[in-house]
């Protein structure tokens, strides 16, 4: 089926089988930051933004993105780097495999929530699993990042 959508602000047109999953489609198009960690919508590794809102690309048909704007980390390099520095300073990217999906959701969170509490942070990001870090370093990174953002305002 014909599809046209924007991936990182670039118009992409293609002809794909109707059951193509968005995750596979994005990787096919060179967005390798998008990872798969499960088949059951549990891990959050595949998080991308559709019209600015975080979605799980593993459980979204590519056709659902018809006419929409999809953003992956390839299209958010500056913001990824900005928060990524804070994560790196905590060693909170151990193997790093969960980092893109996690960071995409952090970016979405900072756009959506003003000054979130610790509990709100944990709840917003609960769907982003990480097996390496035990989450504490990620939380430290987020706190420092939010502090910095506040200070910059």
């Amino acid at each position, binding site marked *: 089926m014909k599809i046209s959508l924007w991936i990182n602000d670039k118009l992409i047109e293609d002809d794909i089988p109707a059951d193509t999953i968005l995750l596979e489609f994005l990787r096919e198009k060179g967005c390798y930051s998008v990872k798969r960690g499960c088949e059951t919508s549990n891990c959050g590794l595949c998080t991308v933004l559709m019209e600015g809102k975080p979605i799980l690309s593993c459980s979204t048909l590519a056709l659902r993105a018809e006419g929409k704007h999809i953003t992956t980390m390839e299209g958010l390099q500056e913001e990824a780097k900005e928060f990524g520095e804070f994560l790196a*300073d905590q060693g909170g990217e151990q193997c790093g495999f969960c980092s893109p999906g996690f960071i995409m959701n952090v970016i979405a969170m900072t756009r959506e929530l003003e000054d979130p509490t610790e509990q709100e942070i944990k709840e917003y990001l609960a769907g*982003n699993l990480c*097996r*390496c*870090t035990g989450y504490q370093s990620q939380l430290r990174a987020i706190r420092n990042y939010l502090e910095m953002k506040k200070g910059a305002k």
Partner: protein
Amino acid sequence: MKMKAVNTPVRKKDAMALVTGKPVYTDDIAPKDCLVLKILRSPHAHALVKEVKKDAALKVPGVEYVFTHEDVPGTRFTIAGQTFPELSPYDRLILDQRVRFVGDAVAIVAGKDEASVNKAMKLIKVTYEVLEPVLDFTRSKDNRVIIHPESDWSIPVGLEPDKDRNVVCHGIEERGNAEEELAKCSYVVDETYHTKANQQAMMETFRAYTHIDVNGRLNVVSSTQVPFHVRKTLATALEIPKSQIRIVKPRIGGGFGAKQTVVCEMYPAFVSWKTKRPAKIVYTREESQIAASPRHEMQVRVRAGADENGKIQAMIVETLSNAGAYGEHTPTTIGLTGAKTLPLYTSNAKAYKFEFEGVYTNTQAAGAYRGYGATQGTFAVESAVSQLAEKMNIDPIRFREMNMVREGDIMHAYHGETANACALDRCLERAKQMIGWDSKYPCRDMGNGKVRSVGVAMTMQGSSIQQVDVASVSIKTGDDGFYNMQIGATDMGTGCDTILAQMAADCLHTEVDNIVVSGVDTDVSPYDSGSYASSTTYLTGQATIKTCETLKKKIIEAGAQMIGCSSEDAEFNGREVFVPGTDQKVSLKDVANAAMCGSVHTLEACEKSTSPVSPPPFMAATVEIEIDKETGHIELIDYCAAVDCGTVINTNLARVQAEGGIAQGIGMALYEDVVHSKAGKCYTDSFLQYKIPSRLDTGKIRVEFESSYEPTGPFGAKSIGEVVINTPSPAIAHAVYNGTGLRFRELPITGEKIVMGLKELEKDTGK
């Protein structure tokens, strides 16, 4: 040596690439024209493959090959990633006619894309002769069903195996007469514990791709912790010389021991070697749950006895381990259930005994998971010690203080090594203070049906396998004076590329950024037994220091010649070779560049390390939990850990290692469990059924370091990677007891079990 980089929180070298999502993992860099492979798996726990009808599958457009046991080489091998001497049985084939667990490989299907291969899988008709399985590991020995009847089963170095009785290994170690001494004790506990299989659940599942290079050699790019052992396994399995194989390790999305086993590489390797075409396999999460390499399920009986003064005088540990269908890592993990627990308490005891046995069953084969047997043993022994303290009416921390190993003690049960660097006493005191033990032990009723309670546990691990593991490092000086460092140890996200560069930077008096570290490529990297057994920081660190010393000598020699002085008079400060007290000097840049032209100075060095000892890191932990007596729900309030890993090389990475290991241990304690149906089918085949902790589940984890100085370690360091996973199960089980009176000797401790237990308790007390 002045430490500038060591003991600081240097960022990982690959950090920015990882956090900006660069394509650095196996599947990101696999060529697009790879054949895509899928494995057709057995629905039976034990069966013989009688016939495989593949015509219909081969007719699916895009499908190119279907291979069965008739197509593969007939030499048995082990997929355990271990160096010599090999203790694991050679009991596998790439595809075997006999399938031994639900999920065992029956056929390899290869095609141009996933969709066509998946379609073909459904069209393959397999006829099985279904056999009776052995699913209960306590009934495996001498069962009439023999899991490995084949005559070509072998084992390079066996620990009393007896495969005709389903026994993979057996052994006894004893000092003094433990039974006799136990009988003399005034207070004795005798309990049996049961720990379950757990999945490492690293976020990147098993995967590899393979192709044939310009010289006709097999190239394998694999997400592995043990590149050199992948080469060894593939050479045996494919019956080709090692010189024909090259393994490259890109960035890895987590391993935790899972990737110390060659779980998936033989399939694409076989296909590429046979067809000369590139091939790739990426396991689904389901496959990584049902046909992988989880922690060994174990049954551990502990008998511990103390005299009337509260001194432990005798301890006996008996471990039965479930190998599953194949024996990789079984003879080696099992030893740690005793060797990493008994020494904590038996330095001054009269006797101890350790007996072990590993048996086959028709379940998913177990392998290496962080902690490697020590985790299971620690749950059992620490639980028994807490119970013994209670029996004697002594505070469980006090009781440990009275009995634990201290610096200078000889650990008879740990190869007779002396605890040269041991801050366990300080760790325990610290963990006690951190949680506020005295005001919280044993529990506080919160008045709303909830109770808050505390628990304690301590543990040790090793640092490399003494007299076995080897690590080598090579460093060469490039023009202008930068360094290329090659290590055979694999960075699996743990940051060893950075940690070792920190050490090298301090040894060569330079900046971490001036040291370029290359990932493992078996064609060029020096041999390393691999990143396991907590060996990298300690052993590869030792090799790093040695290499730097040799290299420095060479730089000084070359520099001295340029200055025109004797090398004995010259020194090197990282920037220049100079003669102290004079203005004679030559810069490293000039020395390095001079070596590039008309020179015989090879400014490179390669040194190797192996260690006669395996100095244990120690750790003590306390935990506070809140138990909802209505629902059985456990909430982690505070997990306090004090770790003695010797000198901390990278303060950030060590902390994150500890926090991550504790979180995994919490999962093991509370919900992670590989569950099978009565027919042997694995129910926990996804993250829906197999729950790992999310950020809402881990509570607060606090880690502090109480460092000792290990004289044999690089900069005084010991290991950290594994010791950190051991304490949660016993500490949480202890806290649950202190809050409810329920002693859990089987993991995981689910809310359901707590509610049931409390009901029973009420009945018993007639309330």
